[in-house]
């Protein structure tokens, strides 16, 4: 964690987001939570229970924990990450398994980040409603 007042470079911000995905993949939600500000907002995709707005770190981490418990073999492979001063965008090849069926999808995570690389807002965009199908089955 950078000290307050230290402005991270774009590469450092990208690395923090990469670290966050790695922490999620190994189930270290505590490490993931440290990447968000207390008042961070998560805008989930679609009309599933994971869609909608989750306001505050506790709410968004709760949503994330539920996602991790709902699916098996969650794969989040980063295809590319781009950044500017205020945003980090991760292009992710995603797949999840539920009830023996695997659903693959491409997702774009848009992170609004502060100077210390902490995420204040996240938007998740996807090109399909695969997640909804997986929950309906």
């Amino acid at each position, binding site marked *: 964690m950078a000290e307050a007042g230290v402005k991270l470079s774009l590469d450092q911000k990208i690395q923090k987001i990469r670290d966050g995905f790695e922490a999620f993949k190994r189930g270290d939600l505590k490490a993931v939570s440290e990447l968000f500000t207390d008042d961070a907002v998560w805008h989930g995709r679609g009309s599933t229970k994971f869609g909608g707005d989750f306001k505050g770190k506790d709410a968004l981490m709760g949503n994330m924990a539920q996602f991790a418990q709902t699916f098996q073999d969650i794969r989040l492979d980063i295809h590319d990450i*781009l950044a500017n001063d205020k945003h980090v965008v991760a292009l992710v090849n995603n797949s999840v398994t539920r009830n023996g069926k695997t659903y693959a999808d491409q997702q*774009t995570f848009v992170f609004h980040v502060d100077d210390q690389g902490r995420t204040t807002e996240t938007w998740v*965009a996807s*090109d399909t409603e695969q997640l909804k199908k997986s929950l309906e089955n």
Partner: protein
Amino acid sequence: MAQSGTKLTPPQKIEMARKAIEAGSRGEVNPEGFSRDAVMRGSLVGEARGRDAVVAALKKAPTMFEEFQQQPHAILADNDHVVALINLKVKSRGKTVEAQQVMVVHTNDQGQVTELWAMIEPEALKQIQNR
């Protein structure tokens, strides 16, 4: 358009994308900005394969509405991709829907689009489609 063999920098790609989005909002699309085998997948217009089909799909989008505005919030680029975060506003049958749109563009070294995804948040898309 850069000449063949000229590799564009990310800032040049960002500037090209900004101009292309502004023009696209008016239904103006430069075919030379796309590779011959370009592919597009869009929430509004579905999938299009090949330069002509992609250009036609992009020109079609604004014609589907009484008003169609795409305002770039931020554009990011690296060697392989350009990502545009867009505030989209469409008006149809007197109803206005505002949504966040994400465009992910794969480009070649000359800045030509080889693949384009235009995603709109599903709830807003539903409002647009049910208008």
